[in-house]
């Protein structure tokens, strides 16, 4: 239809609306009805506009941030930058590299995943499969999990310092290495930073796992138990395989949350500078996020450092993205294998 055909129609509509308004003012009995009619028309377009605008704004801001980072970081990015270490001068765009930070960040995220998934899954299995839903213990655990999700990440950092390093690490040193002057366990380390991050991301994994466990048809559990399977066999052979995609979703969320976090590892493992890569779980490590902070606050020559500051951010985003993609690929493989059986 041509535009000409639309115009008189929309004019007609306007006219009808005006008449309706007039009627509304004149005739009391139609008042409520008309307000309702107008009430449907008016806000729906307003809300469409508002939500659309908000979406556009978010996309715009995101695009601006990414463009800004890429624009400024481009000159600092090079293959040498990604694979080189920091032995020369970590603040000089022509000499510095971020490989140790990539290594450290990837190591702490992967280790964290290894800690958080078993603990989170076992907790979720306990809560949904074993504990009575109304028992006080269950309610306390659930409340604790929910509150854990709301704790600021710096508090996890302090918790890691107090619990893992001073308490656990200190005791390990006293028990197994008495008389050693230098602490081995009782100091910031890759293992403690990963565990601190694991504590922080625990709620995500627990909630995702619980949700997927609850989605499993109760008939499957009954079928297994009626065949003489123990509860543990039922969980391991029937329940968990079904819940695997949900568990991996929890893992993906945990990775996303943890990869960019700096506060929890500040006191528990991240190093300002290290001449070599971490050799063991008790070594400290350099971290991309923390390195961004170091570059932006400690550089003697800001002009020489700025390109690598941005380039480091690009690498951090790239690594977070890559870790997420890896997790998503694993999940889709698992889903495919499961779907073949559905």
């Amino acid at each position, binding site marked *: 239809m041509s535009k000409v055909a639309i115009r008189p129609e929309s004019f007609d509509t306007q006219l009808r609306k005006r008449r309706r308004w007039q009627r509304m003012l004149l005739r009391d009995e139609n008042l409520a009805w008309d307000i309702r009619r107008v009430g449907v028309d008016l806000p729906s377009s307003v809300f469409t506009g508002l939500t659309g605008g908000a979406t556009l704004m978010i996309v715009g801001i995101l695009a601006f941030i990414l463009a800004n980072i890429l624009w400024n970081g481009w000159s600092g990015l090079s293959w040498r930058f990604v694979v080189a270490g920091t032995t020369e001068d970590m603040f000089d765009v022509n000499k510095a590299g971020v490989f140790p930070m990539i290594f450290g960040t990837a190591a702490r995220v992967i280790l964290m995943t290894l800690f958080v998934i078993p603990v989170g899954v076992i907790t979720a299995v306990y809560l949904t499969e074993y504990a009575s839903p109304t028992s006080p213990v269950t309610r306390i655990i659930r409340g604790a999990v929910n509150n854990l999700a709301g704790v600021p990440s710096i508090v996890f950092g302090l918790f890691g310092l107090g619990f893992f390093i001073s308490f656990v690490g200190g005791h390990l040193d006293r028990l197994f290495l008495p008389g050693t002057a230098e602490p081995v366990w009782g100091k910031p380390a890759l293992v403690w930073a990963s565990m601190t991050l694991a504590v922080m991301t625990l709620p995500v994994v627990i909630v995702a796992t619980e949700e997927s466990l609850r989605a499993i048809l109760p008939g499957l559990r009954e079928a297994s138990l009626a065949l*003489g399977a123990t509860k543990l066999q039922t969980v391991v052979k029937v329940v968990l395989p079904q819940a695997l995609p949900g568990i991996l979703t929890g893992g993906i969320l945990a990775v996303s949350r943890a990869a960019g976090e700096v506060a929890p590892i500040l006191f528990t493992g991240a190093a300002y500078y290290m001449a070599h890569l971490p050799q063991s779980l008790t070594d400290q490590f350099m971290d991309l996020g923390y390195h961004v902070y170091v570059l932006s606050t400690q550089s003697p020559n800001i002009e020489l450092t700025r390109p690598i500051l941005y380039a480091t951010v690009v690498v951090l985003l790239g690594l977070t993205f890559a870790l997420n993609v890896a997790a998503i690929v694993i999940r889709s493989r698992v889903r495919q294998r499961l779907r073949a059986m559905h």
Partner: protein
Amino acid sequence: MPAPMDPLVKLDSRITVGSTEDHASHAPLIEVKDLSLWYGTANALDHITVLIRERVVTAFIGPSGCGKSTFLRCLNRMNDLIDHVRIAGSVHIASQDIYSHEVDVIELRKRIGMVFQKSNPFPKSIYDNIAYGLRIQGVRDRAALDEAVEKSLRDAALWEEVKDRLHSSAMGLSGGQQQRLCIARAIAIRPEIILMDEPASALDPLATARIEDLILELKKEFTIVIVTHNMQQAARISDFTAFFYLGKLVEYDTTARMFTNPARKQTEDYITGRFG
């Protein structure tokens, strides 16, 4: 602890034991005495006393909500899994009190297979479904598993239909095939008793007929207790019929007598379709 019931003692005979003469060769296997069950405070079973014979089909009929499933689940202690269930009375299977503390529930359930109203194959391959019960018992030998899978599928009249796709998903089968798969899965571990809770209620007439044929075949080897709200089905396949109403056992007798000459007015009304 109640003493094991002497099967020779005739209880209020037509109500609890069923007629004996025609089935003298079938010894009593399950002896239920004064069994009551409460979900919280709601009484679901009220002093059920019944004696079920081996290698016959015993059908439990009654309107829905009268406690048939609850009763069935008492026999393999599936009600243990539900919170706030309280049980009184006794159930003896082969003279063993299954609610005594010495009884290992896991071992008990290996002796008593169960087929559910809604077919519930595992989302695994047909083969893995059948092998599941044996594998959890630790059977690893491939040849033994292969043999058990084939035998169970043949016994469940499913072998010809699935022999070429044993390793594809059980979820790809039709509803009737899935239910026969569940029967095959239950008999793979060679239980003594098979409990069936309305196994054909979700199936079309043709699939139902196949299940009924299968049940008649299986009773040569297994003791079958079946719950159904379909009276024609009970009449077609069972040797004994028990009529439940509002948690009580109203009447229990040979199927032939129940359907031709019931002792109680209530039974007659139900069977002739006057209520329920």
